[in-house]
């Protein structure tokens, strides 16, 4: 079975500062990894994904994440955040053998002016 841990429930940051949202996963088999974002009063949408190939993946809105197999991590980063990045961010994992997607508990990113 797979599991995901997002250690930070909330991350406050000032506008234009860099941010990192942490995600660690557990799995005995190879995985696919995802970050989803939920803006206030909106549904979840895919931010980026790692399926195979380059371990550094780029997503929408200037976000990127790096897959680190040895540390079983998939941290999300952005070099300079905007007020509009305020949202809930969810890390998710699935085994490459199934379609079941398991989500973490989410990290609320609050960007202040």
């Amino acid at each position, binding site marked *: 079975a797979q599991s995901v841990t*997002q250690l930070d429930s909330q991350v406050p940051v000032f506008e234009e500062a860099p941010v990192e949202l942490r995600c660690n996963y557990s799995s005995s088999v190879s995985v696919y990894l995802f970050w989803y974002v939920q803006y206030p009063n909106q549904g979840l949408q895919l931010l980026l*994904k790692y399926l195979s190939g380059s371990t550094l993946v780029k997503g929408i809105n200037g976000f990127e994440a790096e897959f680190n197999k040895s540390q079983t991590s998939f941290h999300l980063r952005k070099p300079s955040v905007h007020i509009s990045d305020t949202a809930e961010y969810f890390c998710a994992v699935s085994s490459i053998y199934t379609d079941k997607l398991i*989500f973490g508990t989410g990290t609320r990113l609050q960007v202040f002016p």
Partner: protein
Amino acid sequence: GAGVSQSPSNKVTEKGKDVELRCDPISGHTALYWYRQRLGQGLEFLIYFQGNSAPDKSGLPSDRFSAERTGESVSTLTIQRTQQEDSAVYLCASSPSRKNTGELFFGEGSRLTVL
């Protein structure tokens, strides 16, 4: 419609009543997922369908919960004899075939409040 549609958007019910939540996936999407999101918590996997079969029902919390899907179309999540701990937002998502794109398209959810 263009996206995943869920109804009702809001449902308030009394403890012990049955409720049905409906999901209309994006046309042509073969996979359909149900998740539960309790206040302040992450998304809890409930069940997913590939076509009208459910390969994985492991997330259904109890036998009060059931779900069905008609072909590759509408799905209904039914909760019998609701309890207060069932209060949550129930999210539906669909995918053309997740292994190809890795992307689920989510609806805006059905908020269930059990009094």
